């Protein structure tokens, strides 16, 4: 046996005051079989120490109470604590640069890089492969997203007096009603994938969580703008809701991300820029501008994620194409964009009901649709589609914009 046994002086501390914390620390330094002399003046020390040690596999011997014996008990360290960590492993590395390609399901919710005890449940993350969810840009985008959060209560000049002609106000309300409907879909969609992605890809989860929170704020400010002058909202068309439903029913993360972020939110960038330009009041302009900044981030992640995937998986573009065609087929018999929304956009761009102004407004909305189309083509080309195919697919995108 080696040198003198270790001792621990608990002073007057009992188990109600944390004696077990000091004991765990002291025993943690010992090998199984080594002894720890325990000193202390708590009257219940030996009673509680024996019960505590018994439950943890340590042996306790209490020397006969000699008045000059300061050690009240000898604890022989058991092996249960070291046994518990047999087969333990690190859940990868803490940082985002050396990710596992396919982290095991049993790493589960453990922090990336934590030492994890063997056993435990195999968590059901069906999106558990790096190539299916990751984009190297995710940590940076998350940092940007976290830094760019704005407070709906103060970021919008709600105190500004907004007094518009009734029909202009009603056009704003209609557009806001439409935006809320779309943002609700954009909130639910990333949230549905959150629970399916392995937490090893933490930055993707964080980004999607912020994305959902972004949409929550958009819903709030669009609703607040819609009800600025009254409580009557605009219309919601069955075709519009069906278009959004086809988005939510896509079970594949990459395809859903493609339809929502690359095509849908990509088109919304043009729409929000349009509203920024033609907004009849500063509140409408501000909410459109704030939402556009957030949406640009969502689009960037969607494009980066799919670029990464596309490089790894040559078959991806075929599946993306099929997803667009499938959605187009599902919506071919629907009316497309709610006519009330279309008219409202024209009126906003026109600024009045004068026939010539309406003609100019119509031209502006046609230009908006052209901008959306061109933007989609550009993003599709970035994903590796040839120009002619990108043009064809862009034309098949839902007429409901999102």
């Amino acid at each position, binding site marked *: 046996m080696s040198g003198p046994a270790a001792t621990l002086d608990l002073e007057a501390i*009992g*188990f*109600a*005051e944390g004696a077990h914390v000091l004991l765990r620390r002291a025993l943690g330094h010992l090998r199984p079989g080594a002894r720890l002399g325990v000193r202390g003046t708590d*009257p*219940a020390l030996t*009673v*509680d120490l*024996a*019960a*505590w040690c*018994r*439950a*943890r*596999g340590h042996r306790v011997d209490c020397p006969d109470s000699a008045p000059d014996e300061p050690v009240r008990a000898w604890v022989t360290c*058991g*092996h*249960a604590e070291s*046994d*518990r960590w*047999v*087969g333990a492993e690190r859940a990868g590395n803490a940082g985002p640069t050396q990710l596992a390609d396919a982290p095991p399901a049993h790493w589960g919710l453990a922090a990336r890089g934590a030492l994890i*005890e*063997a*056993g*435990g449940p195999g968590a059901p993350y069906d999106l558990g492969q790096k190539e299916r969810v990751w984009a190297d840009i995710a940590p940076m985008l998350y940092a940007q997203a976290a830094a760019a959060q704005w407070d709906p209560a103060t970021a919008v000049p709600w105190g500004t007096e907004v007094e518009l002609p009734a029909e202009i106000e009603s056009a704003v309300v209609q557009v806001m009603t439409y935006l809320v409907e779309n943002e609700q879909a954009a909130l639910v969609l990333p949230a549905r994938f959150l629970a399916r992605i392995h937490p090893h890809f933490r930055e993707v989860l964080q980004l999607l969580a912020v994305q959902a929170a972004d949409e929550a704020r958009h819903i709030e400010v669009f609703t607040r703008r819609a009800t600025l002058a009254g409580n009557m909202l605009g219309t919601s068309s069955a075709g519009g809701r069906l278009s959004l439903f086809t988005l939510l029913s896509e079970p594949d993360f990459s395809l859903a991300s493609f339809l929502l972020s690359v095509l849908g939110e990509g088109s919304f960038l043009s729409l929000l820029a349009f509203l920024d330009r033609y907004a009849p009041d500063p509140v409408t302009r501000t909410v459109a501008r704030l939402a556009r900044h957030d949406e640009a981030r969502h689009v960037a992640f969607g494009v980066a994620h799919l670029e990464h995937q596309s490089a790894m998986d040559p078959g991806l573009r075929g599946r993306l194409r099929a997803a667009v065609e499938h959605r187009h087929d599902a919506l071919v018999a629907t009316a497309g964009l709610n006519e009330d929304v279309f008219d409202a956009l024209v009126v906003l761009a026109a600024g009045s009901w004068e026939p010539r102004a309406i003609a100019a407004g119509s031209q502006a909305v046609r230009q908006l649709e052209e901008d959306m189309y061109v933007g989609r083509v550009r993003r599709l080309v970035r994903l590796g589609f040839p120009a002619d195919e990108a043009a064809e697919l862009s034309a098949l995108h839902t007429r409901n914009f999102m």
Partner: protein
Amino acid sequence: MTLLMGAVAYDPKVVSIWTGFRSWLTRHQLSFDFVLYSNYERQVEDLVAGRLHAAWNSPLAWERAQRLARSEGRRVWPLVMRDTDQDLTSVVIVRADSSIESPADLADRTVAVGAVDSPQATLIPLSYLRSLFITADPDIKILRHDIGVGLHGDHVGGERDAARALITGQADAACMLDASHLLFTNDGTFPPGSVRVLAQTPPYDHCNMTVVDTAPREPALRFVELLRGMSYADPDIRPLLDLEGLRTWRPGRTTGYAQLTAAVDEGGFYDLAGGITVQDYWP
């Protein structure tokens, strides 16, 4: 042949524990099944009658199993026990500001105990207190807490109620397992600094896996071998060991039950043939 074991369902976790152990034992080529009982008395009767091969017994059930077996011309013995079943003690607790300084001061006082059939919170500590008095009848008033009668004290509720009776002043002292004193200290049942230990019994043993001589020999031996081979380092079995409250199974021993035997005899809980003779006991 399937080895059939009885266990008492004192808590829903018993199902998880023995279902888990059964799967593990089956994976290790032991045909094993279990029957759950609502109380220990019927389990022990079925064990000695040969309807079970083994029983996961409380110490009081072990005491009765021996008495019944003797009268029936059978033999029972403890195959294994948990490491946490060895060398337990019970304590008698008083309030910190109490004038009671020694067990002799308990004369004419009220002592809170657990259920009528709790070895650790009633039978053993009361027997110990009796042994400390010179006179046969110290005239202690007993305040019993009959929670989970028939479970032989496995339900901690009786001990907790005894502890509360002490704190609220209904009782002058309370009897409990040393581990329950630690539990109540940590969970706030005993406010900090509110109690002190008046007396502590010598160590005794608790549960054991009792087997009867009518059990098939090879499966019983395999059962012991497998239980003893369960390792806390095995992540498959560790959650079950944690649930059952042990780190390792140890060989059964009979040396730790003398205090309970004396208590059962003194209180007339069972007769020598294992008949239930205590009054007010309806498991």
